């Protein structure tokens, strides 16, 4: 039976054909990782989507039961490999919460600088890869041009370009090198005008708008029900960001920072910068809004990095000394979520008093974000599937862990 669809532009509306099972993947249509979607199609219309995961499963949680918290840091890098710094932070804060270990002002500002830069780098891939999903190659190259420069900066800080292991329980492995802040400042100054190019390439591009507006609409209730977080949740107009609403241990890093949660409130987005206008066709919660929230977060992160650099240069204390490997973890359990670029990344740590955790658990944001895909992909043409899945901006390394 043909799937009922209201969109009259879809001419196959009542053409009855045989149902067919189509495999999309296991290699992903673009660069998010390895995902296999089984589509039940009727002509061009998809009636059911079944995601199959696990191709990148590396038993990270089991490994965590055999390593001290600091030794597990490199494994968190390999979860969301596009935002390693933010993953490090989530685990580091979780361990510090159990140890009740407090950091100096300087260490906190350092973490804000690094994590917000990580967020920019991650959203740049998100943006470029989304262009790939929709069939345009050039935004990807533009995005990587800038991302490379952030990676160069990170390389100077910790020696690695992808799997940093820089932020560790207790602080960070080293202080920022001399002159790094100036380079970072320089980068931000050059980067700021470039964002207009991205908007011209994608956000306000007529074809892009046609491909993303009113596609894959996710209502706020459904987003919360499925545990969607991050830009996916805020793209549906829910005013929630852990940097403001999270636990004190996390929000105190951002104490006194000026920033507004990026989401559409009372029909408009924050007006602190010149942002492109929302197209008339866009519906709150569609692919375009999710993409737009990410683009605006890039600008917001730049603001945050600038504020953090000012504070960092006058802050007292040291950058934080990593905890010793033999540090005994007090018996008990703690759970902490941070706002990673793709959503709320949670770590749960259970200890029985030794220096190795009894159980570790990583609550993945992309995992929950992807779980909504069978719901919002019902009754759409096949060509919209990459548009919808891409707009969720998943990273399979984090989903499969």
């Amino acid at each position, binding site marked *: 039976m043909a799937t009922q669809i209201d969109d009259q532009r879809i001419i196959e509306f009542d053409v009855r054909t045989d149902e067919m099972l189509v495999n999309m993947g296991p290699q992903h249509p673009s660069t998010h990782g390895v995902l296999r979607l089984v589509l039940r199609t009727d002509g061009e219309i998809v009636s059911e989507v079944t995601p199959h995961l696990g191709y990148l499963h590396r038993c990270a949680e089991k490994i965590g039961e055999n390593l001290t918290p600091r030794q597990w840091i490199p494994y968190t890098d390999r979860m969301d490999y596009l935002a390693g710094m933010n993953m490090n932070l989530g685990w580091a804060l979780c361990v510090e919460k159990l140890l009740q270990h407090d950091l100096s002002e300087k260490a906190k500002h350092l973490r804000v600088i690094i994590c917000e830069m990580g967020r920019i780098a991650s959203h740049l891939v998100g943006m470029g890869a989304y262009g790939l999903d929709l069939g345009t190659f050039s935004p990807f190259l533009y995005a990587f041009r800038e991302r490379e420069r952030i990676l160069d900066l990170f390389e100077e800080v910790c020696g690695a370009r992808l799997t940093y292991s820089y932020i560790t329980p207790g602080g960070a492995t080293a202080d920022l090198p001399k002159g790094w802040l100036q380079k970072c400042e320089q980068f931000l100054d050059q980067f700021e005008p470039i964002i207009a190019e991205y908007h011209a390439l994608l956000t306000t591009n007529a074809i892009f708008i046609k491909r993303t507006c009113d596609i894959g609409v996710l209502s706020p209730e459904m987003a919360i029900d499925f*545990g969607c977080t991050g830009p996916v949740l805020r793209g549906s107009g829910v005013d929630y960001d852990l940097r403001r609403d999270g636990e004190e241990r996390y929000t105190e890093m951002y104490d006194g920072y000026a920033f507004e949660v990026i989401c559409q409130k009372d029909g408009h987005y924050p007006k602190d910068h010149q942002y492109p206008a929302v197209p008339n066709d866009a519906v709150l919660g569609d692919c375009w809004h999710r993409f737009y929230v990410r683009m605006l977060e890039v600008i917001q992160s730049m603001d945050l990095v600038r504020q953090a650099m000012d504070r960092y240069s006058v802050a007292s204390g040291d950058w934080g000394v990593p905890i010793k490997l033999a540090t005994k973890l007090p018996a008990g359990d703690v759970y902490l979520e941070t706002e990673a670029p793709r959503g709320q990344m949670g770590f749960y740590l259970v200890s029985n008093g030794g220096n190795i955790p009894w159980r570790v658990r990583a609550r993945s944001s992309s*995992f929950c974000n992807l779980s909504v895909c069978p719901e919002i992909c019902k009754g759409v043409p096949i060509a919209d599937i990459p548009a919808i899945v891409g707009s969720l901006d998943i990273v399979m390394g984090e989903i499969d862990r």
Partner: protein
Amino acid sequence: MAGGDGLLGKLKSKFGDQIVGANLEAIDPWIEISPDALVEVGRFVRDDASLKLEMLNCITAVDWLEVDPKKAAKAGFEPHLEMVYHLSSISKRHTLVLKFKLPRWKDGVEGEAPECPSVSSIWSTADWHERETYDLSGVIFTGHPNLRRILCPEDWVGYPLRKDYQMPLEYHGIRGR
């Protein structure tokens, strides 16, 4: 914690003996319930106007088993599985942790996974999280619409996050250990 100290009294007056215990002094205060009451308690804390815990963040199963027989005597716990549910509210900005204990194996028969009621009808997040818990920790969620393995292949044997799990010798011709 959601609802402050009053929450425990509120739940106790509503569910009586089903609220087994609590630790409000812990870093993350938690409330222990009876597994049978999970669905009712879940629905209550989601819908209650002062709690509104509409988001299920995480489901975890912790395997409490000391495999080293020398340490087992001093471990201080009987072997069991502990289920942990982390809930949070977006509108009220608070969190809640629910816990309960399950036997490691159903009726003490090794290999028979214990049963636990599914909350996927309350929070859709639970759908995949319960599949993951089933896959890796070996808990059967009764009432789950589609309880299949999610991360491991469907023909995988055993539950990797159990403490006594042994990696298979080989899987489809691939050496395991």
